[in-house]
């Protein structure tokens, strides 16, 4: 194959995957578009306006979704960084089993897990609460966090931390000035992934949230089901927009923080 042919193929296939998203964009600003017309008859911001006007239930649910996803992201990072560190640096009995066990949520259908734990959550009184939803969202993202941080710690080891300790740094200093900046690229990619997955959850939120925890996807589904394309598209656009903004925020806030950081942290990170 010629290089030029390959380029045409590459661009053509990518376009086939990406261009359909334009349909959603068009439908989100369409008021009337009867079949079989090829172009919208009337454009307007009615759909987007209904979602974004202050006090709208959709806007409130967007905030609920973001709040839950942020909590899930912080908790999951908090538990998978030490977990990944143990699996990446240390040798200990049971490591092989634990390495497979922490990846199991990728393989077992969440439908089975959510239905199984539902009764227990009811007895504990955490169904219909954001706490219950956060807990159930953490399970499917653990494998991603563990995998990313295990790989990173395998790569960087703990020599830098040891050097810091030799030079007199305490554990807190070592963590904030050495470990954290070293694994920052992993925190950014794991954090984005976790945020997006939690943000997109539907089934676990439906069953555990029981309709009381109204996240954005929960409000969106009835419009998709009833075939209300203007509203479904408007929800989709706001959803994708919020997700992209959140990802940019995660990346830039963390990077900025560590670039401006003084001492070894800033130097190490910008040197990467």
């Amino acid at each position, binding site marked *: 194959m010629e290089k030029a042919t390959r380029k045409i193929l590459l661009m053509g296939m990518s376009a086939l995957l990406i261009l359909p998203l334009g349909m959603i964009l068009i439908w989100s600003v369409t008021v009337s578009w009867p079949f079989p017309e090829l172009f919208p008859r009337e454009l307007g911001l009615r759909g987007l306006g209904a979602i974004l006007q202050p006090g709208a239930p959709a806007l409130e649910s967007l905030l609920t979704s973001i709040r839950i996803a942020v909590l899930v992201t912080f908790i999951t990072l908090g538990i998978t960084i030490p977990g990944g560190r143990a699996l990446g640096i240390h040798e200990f009995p049971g*490591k092989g089993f634990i390495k497979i066990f922490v990846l199991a949520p990728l393989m077992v259908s969440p439908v089975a897990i959510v239905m*199984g734990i539902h009764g*227990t959550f009811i007895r504990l009184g955490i169904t219909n609460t954001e706490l219950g939803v956060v807990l159930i969202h953490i399970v499917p993202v653990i494998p991603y966090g563990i995998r990313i941080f295990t790989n990173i710690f395998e790569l960087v080891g703990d020599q830098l931390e040891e050097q810091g300790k030799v030079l007199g740094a305490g554990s807190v200093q070592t963590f904030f000035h050495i470990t954290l900046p070293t694994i920052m690229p992993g925190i950014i990619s794991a954090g984005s992934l976790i945020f997006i997955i939690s943000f*997109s959850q539907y089934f676990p939120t439906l069953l555990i949230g029981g309709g009381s925890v109204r996240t954005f996807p929960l409000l969106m589904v009835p419009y998709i089901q009833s075939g209300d394309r203007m509203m479904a598209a408007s929800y989709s656009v706001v959803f994708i927009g919020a997700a992209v903004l959140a990802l940019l925020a995660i990346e830039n806030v963390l990077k900025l923080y560590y670039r401006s950081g003084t001492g070894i942290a800033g130097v190490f990170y910008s040197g990467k």
Partner: protein
Amino acid sequence: MLQQTKSSMKPYIYLFPVLSILFFVFTLGLGISILQSLGYYPGIGLQGFTLQYYREVFRSGAFFSGLLFSFKIAMLSSGIAAMIGISLAYLLVMQRKEYPGLQTVLKLPVIVPHLVAAFLIFTLFSQTGIIARLGMLLGLIESSQQFPALIFDSRGIGILLAYIWKGAPFVFLILYQVLRSIEKDMVEAARNLGASGGDLFFRIFLPLSLPSVFSSFIILFAFSFGSYEIPFLLGPTSPRALPVLAYIEYINPDWTNRPYAMAMNMVLAGISILLVWLYHWIFKHYRYFRKEG
């Protein structure tokens, strides 16, 4: 090494938080599902252990057609997504240019939630979708009814397309990194030894990246085999995908139906786990085979 003897408890302490959440939600949830599928459900007065629910589930026609439906869709969509993904990765690597803009837009389908993917497929392929409209314009069909039913159809084409749309860019993102490192290491040498484009793909890129292709295939398979949203939104009423069928049993007001839901869930989980085991088995032998060769 010194450090490990000094504090051998350290890794367990580090792992304690993540393992306790997994035990509390995942293992307990799975355990309760298994017990209920075996008919142990003291909450509604079922105490004994029995395989009766599995037997009845396996005898039911809806379950079998649902199982076949889910399996077929998961296999096909993951396989096609893997093929598109590796082709894209290969085509981009062979450009020897980064195209950062292209890489960024190809991340979009990965970020977009499955619910939106379902809606996207609906706007494209439904009988009043944009493709049907184009068909009308070109005179290929005369009314929306003549456009083939691809959504809510018993073959599950709509579901298939939605999973492929989400899956192919995911495979691309993983495979691109892998193929790029292979390219750096090997392609120059292979070219100098006279390898053609086809040789490069079939004798270098494909065999060396096969473990990554398979592991992304398995992740996609397990996901589409066990998830609810897309078949719920785009699927027909018959056959119903297994997770949808299980949920219908689960929300039945008659709680004695729950063990059937759990039995279906266990069949779902069992097949996914079998596949992971198969994957490990194949690659143990595959590596061995490659070393020999």
